[in-house]
């Protein structure tokens, strides 16, 4: 029941906020109120989740279920394991931050803030549904429905090429989703042949019969799910929509997109691909690992070469998703826990990086890296935040990402030494792309056309070619290059705190994850190569 409330609350909030077109302030206040209530509710959910029960074999907790469409054998069934709980918590945490960040977002002309905030709440509700569904059909419904609000967020509120990016995002995801639908139906048919009561979509039932399904069938069904998740996550070579969507999305939506929405793909690997198709997962692991490692190296290389700040963040994400995929398909509790934790950490660090980049762009009005320089002299706090987010992104020890990246690599090495060694090279690239961008934009003398224009010391040719017209119009003449405002500090503080806390004390989160990843490993039918997870 608690989960149902968690799902319905933002949805109701979205319906309330959407009509408040004339009164943007009320709309924003109601929206952030709903988001904070959701966060408080998530704390209650976290407190109600019992790690001891999970360790004792209780796969899903706080379950809620009613019959939905009996003719299809589907139930409206919700329930969470540790991984889902952590992902829901990440969602509930990021949404108010995104809202606070977008408080004074310059929306394209004619767009109302109420629409923006309502769509964010709708996205949040559907994300909760995706993570909490324990019925494959229900999961699919949320998975596809999630596209719609994100599509409108990008297409209505995004940058100059938003139409192209939104349609590309939608079509990529829809294609993956429809192929997955074939597998979802296939699962139903396969289960109908093996269960006396006929076909089912219940995750638990499907998991029970998973081992009986012949490997060839499993491989076909696996590929359907895999394609959808690989597009969503995105793994190279299905990644080309992300840089466009990430670059054109408004920063708030972009944070949700790379922070949470993409995690649905990796979450899907862990929750659906592995337990439901164990034989296929093992058989196809080399393929996925290859794609993952290619993603780590290729994403990092492209990130080094980016000229656009937002695209840069998108490519770093692609590299990170390679690590997550590596951990998932290396089949050990350590690597699973590392990947699950990585999903959270990536949401925090890349989310923060996206926000900081958004703040820089809002000041300079350009997305080009070369239009900035020496920002540290003008806005030391902003530059410091950039550094914190960047260091977390490159997994410096002491930050959250280090723990997860380390766990992934340590957990993967015994079973997949070659892939792990290759992936380790990616860490070096990570240091390169983060620090080089930091150096170019933040350090040195004050320079760059966007910075100079903001200071009124125009270099003649004005700010860069990628100046967002809406931003330029709003900014008018020389607005200066101010440091962080109080609101912006408020947006970033919780992220910095969490990055450091999870860097030094990842225990509480790992504790929640541990029983669920151990259960997942059992469902795949494997045991740890080196024994249990060591904390």
């Amino acid at each position: 029941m608690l989960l149902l409330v968690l799902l319905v609350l933002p949805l109701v909030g979205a319906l309330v906020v959407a009509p408040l077109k004339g009164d943007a302030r009320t709309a924003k206040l109601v929206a952030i109120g709903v988001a904070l209530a959701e966060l408080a509710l998530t704390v209650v959910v976290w407190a109600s989740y019992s790690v001891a029960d999970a360790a004792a074999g209780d796969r899903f907790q706080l379950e809620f279920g009613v019959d939905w469409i009996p003719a299809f054998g589907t139930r409206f069934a919700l329930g969470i394991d540790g991984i889902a709980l952590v992902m829901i918590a990440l969602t509930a945490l990021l949404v108010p931050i995104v809202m606070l960040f977008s408080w004074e977002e310059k929306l394209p002309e004619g767009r109302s803030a109420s629409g923006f905030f309502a769509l964010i709440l709708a996205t949040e509700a559907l994300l909760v549904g995706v993570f909490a569904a324990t019925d494959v059909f229900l999961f699919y419904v949320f998975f596809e429905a999630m596209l719609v609000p994100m599509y409108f967020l990008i297409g209505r509120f995004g940058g100059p090429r938003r139409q192209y990016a939104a349609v590309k995002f939608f079509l990529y995801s829809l294609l993956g989703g429809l192929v997955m639908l074939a597998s979802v139906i296939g699962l139903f048919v396969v289960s109908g042949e093996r269960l006396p009561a006929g076909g089912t979509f219940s995750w638990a039932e499907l998991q029970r019969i998973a081992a009986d399904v012949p490997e060839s069938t499993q491989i076909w069904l696996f590929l359907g799910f895999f394609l959808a998740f690989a597009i969503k996550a995105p793994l190279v070579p299905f990644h080309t929509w992300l840089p466009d969507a990430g670059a054109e999305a408004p920063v708030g939506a972009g944070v949700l997109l790379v922070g949470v929405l993409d995690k649905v793909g990796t979450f899907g690997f862990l929750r659906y691909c592995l337990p439901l198709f164990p034989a296929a997962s093992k058989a196809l692991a080399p393929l996925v690992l290859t794609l993952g490692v290619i993603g780590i190296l290729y994403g990092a290389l492209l990130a080094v070469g980016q000229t656009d700040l937002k695209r840069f963040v998108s490519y770093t994400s692609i590299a990170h998703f390679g690590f997550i995929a590596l951990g998932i398909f290396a089949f050990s509790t350590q690597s699973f826990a590392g990947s699950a934790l990585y999903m959270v950490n990536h949401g925090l660090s890349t989310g923060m990086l996206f926000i900081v980049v958004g703040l820089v762009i809002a000041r300079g009005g350009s997305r080009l890296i070369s239009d900035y320089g020496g920002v540290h002299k003008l806005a030391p706090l902003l530059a410091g935040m950039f550094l914190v987010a960047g260091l977390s992104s490159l997994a410096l020890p002491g930050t959250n990402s280090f723990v997860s990246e380390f766990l992934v690599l340590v957990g993967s090495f015994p079973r997949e030494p070659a892939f792990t060694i290759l992936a380790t090279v990616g860490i070096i690239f990570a240091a390169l792309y983060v620090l080089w961008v930091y150096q170019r934009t933040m350090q040195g003398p004050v320079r760059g056309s966007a910075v100079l224009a903001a200071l009124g010391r125009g270099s003649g040719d004005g700010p860069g070619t990628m100046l967002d017209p809406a931003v330029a119009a709003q900014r008018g003449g020389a607005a200066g290059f101010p440091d962080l405002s109080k609101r912006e500090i408020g947006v970033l503080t919780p992220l910095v705190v969490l990055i450091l806390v999870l860097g030094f004390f990842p225990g509480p989160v790992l504790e929640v994850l541990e029983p669920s990843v151990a259960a997942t490993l059992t469902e795949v039918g494997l045991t740890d190569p080196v024994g249990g997870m060591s904390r």
Partner: protein
Amino acid sequence: MTGLIASGSALAQVQQITAPPIDYAAIAPLLIVLGGACVSVLAEAFLPRYQRWPVQVALTLVVLAAAGIALGLYAGGAPAGITTLADALAVDRPTLFLWGTLLALGLGSVLLIADRSVEPGGAFIATAAARAAVGGGAAGGPVEGPEDRSYGLPDEAPTMQTEVFPFALFALGGMMAFLAANDLLTMFIALEVLSLPLYLMCGLARRRRLLSQEAAVKYFLLGAFASAFFLYGLALIYGYAGTVRLTGIAQAAVGSNRSDALLFGGLALLVVGLLFKGSVAPFHTWTPDVYQGAPTPVTAFMAACTKVAAFGAILRVLHVAFGDTRWEWRGVLWAVAIISMVIGAVLGLTQTDMKRMIAYSSIAHAGFLLLGAMAITEQGVSATLFYLLAYGFTTVAVFGVISLVRDADGEATHLSQWAGLAKRSPLTAGVMTFLLLALAGIPLTSGFTAKFAVFSAALADGMAPLVVIALVASAIAAFFYLRVIVLMYFSEPAPDGPTVTVPGAFTTAAITLGVLVTLLLGIVPTLALNWAGGATFVG
């Protein structure tokens, strides 16, 4: 000797012909609709012109409601399937479900047809041909001829021509008989009863008359060909089986050592006639032209109801008469379904006119429907029935919305004219977006539930490759639905763009009905699925 005796007894039997028993309760809906159509003709003949519109609208709505009540009373008793009228009609679960669907869709379409506020004076005109000749022309601007006034009192605005109401009722009655027909001859007659009024209705547009009449002529000529195909196929099958009864054909086809050439030649021709009505590619070429040219309310009627009738008949023919020989013909229909899905989805991408685009979408949907119709299982039948219900309501509402977006020259159906509609009229754009998402099959709309039902039936009956192709076609088709959404929401409106007419009560009711059903069938489809479930044919 024995021959003589046999012919003598046959003679005696002939002389003892008695009227077949008729189950009036079962066929009451059909009788009410056809009877209402006759009364409607009389009203058209004897009432003064200014009284016709209110009388015809009231009469049509009453007839549809009465037929619906009769159907509800009969179906409420959970009757076993029966055949009646000397086995000419089969009233079984699929028939009852589709009759209900047809009556409800007919109601929605008639509401659109009856509306006079969207197009002042209604969308229909009587002597369109004459006026087109003197200059109504392809441009189709409003021409105020003397006849316009003569349909009302002299000081009133011109009223609409009302012969469209009896046409609609006759067509509806024909459709109901078509999908209940238990022998091929009855089916052929019903086919003509439903087709002839439709040909006429296509040519009634008040605006863009040349286009409208071109559509009518095309539809008539191609439809006549299709009827001829159907009839020829019927003749071949009769030659093979010696009967036109569907069950008789099934019996003849099993365990006979006659040449199959007649049977399958006949089936091929028969199916061509049926697929034409269902606008399945490659027999679809009339669809875009007719959808575009016909007055939009008539397009709604055709798109929704004809599809239901045609696929009802296809289901019955394939399941009852040819269910046991499915392995012989399925390969061909596989190809037809693939062609239909691909043509619908790919050519839909290139369209620039809303009505043509929806026409290609209907071709793609016909391919999906064929998937369900080919699955000779109970699940296949119920999935197809549900799909027809879901698709029909969405389509009626879509055409209802299309009829609202207008500029000075009538409906603004060119895609570019829809740019920025969300800014001018957020509600209309929102409704249209929802309906387009339903056509694309996004979850939480009826389109998804229906697609899911059909695809799972097809997959369970061993058509996995076809399902994958269907899903890819869905993804392609999604692009052109999406394009409209992009235009409405993300583009700036043209300064002299079309306006959205405030719909009258009738159009509002029709659109609301369509949207509500689309939403409900997406979220709580259980009731409708149960109605459609367990549907088996009798014969």
